[in-house]
């Protein structure tokens, strides 16, 4: 759905999107990494289970809730990528853990 634009000297940051290695420009958000990784949907609705994906990219809509380094319910558009970050789809609602 999205591609990197040319003419950038941003360093690349390796992350893991849904189990696959992806390189994203430094300073990118986790939600952008998902879009660049061609994730399609990035979560499924906690109610109906229908597929959803980032919508506003500015922290308002909460459609980009995802699992980041194992932590669920993170707003992917508000989190800047770090090397080795694991970014995963969140299916349904967050599970309560001990």
């Amino acid at each position, binding site marked *: 759905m999205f591609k*990197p634009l*040319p003419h950038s000297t941003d360093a690349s940051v390796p992350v893991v999107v849904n189990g696959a290695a992806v390189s994203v420009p430094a300073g*990118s958000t986790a939600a952008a990494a998902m879009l*660049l990784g061609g994730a399609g*949907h990035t979560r499924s609705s906690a109610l109906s289970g229908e597929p959803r994906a980032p919508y*506003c990219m*500015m*922290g308002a809509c909460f*459609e980009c809730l995802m699992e980041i380094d194992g932590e669920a319910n993170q*707003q992917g558009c508000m989190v800047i990528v770090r090397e080795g970050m694991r970014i995963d789809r969140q299916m349904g609602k967050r599970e309560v853990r001990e």
Partner: protein
Amino acid sequence: MITAFDLAIVGTGPAGMAAAITASELGLSVAVLDEQPEPGGQIYRGVERLAISRAKHLEWLGPDYAAGLDLARAFRKSKIEYFDAAQVWQIEPVENGRLFYKRNGVTGILNAKKFLIAPGAMERPMPVPGWTLPGVMTCGAAQTLMKANGLAPEGKFVLAGCGPLLLLLAAQLLRAGVRPAAILETEVHRWAALPRLPGFLAAPGYLGKGLALLREIQSGGVPYHKGVTHLAIKGDTQAREIEFACSGVTHSEPVDLVLLHQGVVPNGNLAWSMRLAHEWDDAQRAFRPVLDAQGRSSNPAVLVAGDASGIIGAKGAQAMGQVVACAAAIDIGRISKQEVNERAIAAHAELAKHRGARPFLDTLYRPAQQWIAPRDDNTLVCRCEEVRAGEIRRLVLEQQCPGPNQMKSFVRCGMGPCQGRLCGLTTVELIAECRGVLVQDVGYYRIRSPIKPITVGDLAALDVPLRSDAVNP
């Protein structure tokens, strides 16, 4: 110990940055908080980084965007305490009240004599059939991806809706060599806007920039459908097809990505959570806080600047930030009205010029009823709690549900993680339409803190009492 400031400013868009610079120059001790890791707000998002590693992108985004760089640099040099990546989740709207924020996973508290909030704007929700499908985003989202992440749409994509941002995005993408498959422009109101043209012409550079954008889009060869009266996005798990109607003819096109836009509205949750008095702005079809000419709200502890006060644009927001910072400095008693007069008058004159352009733009791009109160019963209004337009209509007409807060009780409309940001205006417009009353008589959601996501653990970790009488009465 809680650090105390004269003034706490929320937001580092043009209004917040300008307010911070002015307030510090006037001798106030200033804290500035913003949830993003870098200053600029959404309008100048990432501008400092682009200047370093993506100069070409800066050129594509254009001089109005690059202008943010000077402001960001002046902001960095100003004598303020800047809390980047800090999410403000509660402000006690009293003088010497506390401001609660989360930063690096930890809750912080600071104290301020007054609060100047500049949370900016967000795109108006545009609920059309299929708008929750992956592959549907806002024009602003695509622009943010270009600014903050250096990404552009791939495959066949269309821009649908209307407003200056939609046209600007089309031109910015074309400059980067990325061509939209089509622009589907919903009805604009040229004749109604015409009498308001003089104010627009008096505002510096507006007409020239608007015409230049239209020329760029035209010479870019983008198919431009005008007067679109119906939109529906279709697909199973992903947007695959867009259906649109104009001049009485329905068309259908395969598509990979749809970018919607129907103007911008004040980003209101912080102001609402502080119980500021609001009024309905019928020209902009949105609520805005009731303010005096210097940005003082109904609460003596709170001032508002920028697009959160009603949409005025980046340049207007910058001027207003200066105006409101002067008022704060006077009210705090740091400086006399006479001492600040010259500065305040200049900023006021600048603000007035930009404000003068709005009536034309507001009228030209006033959203038609079907975009703010969806006709199709099956269209989702509340994306979080999955409440559809038909359900809202039924509850008003059959169950006499009178307003948005009662709608929460019936179907949890507006009670999901986005706290009504993406359904609030649609819900109140639908209720008003069904009841045959004005939107101002329907009111809005009662927004309560925390207005940003925090955990029970965050609250438990606080070693101070939450004075609940000062918030959410």
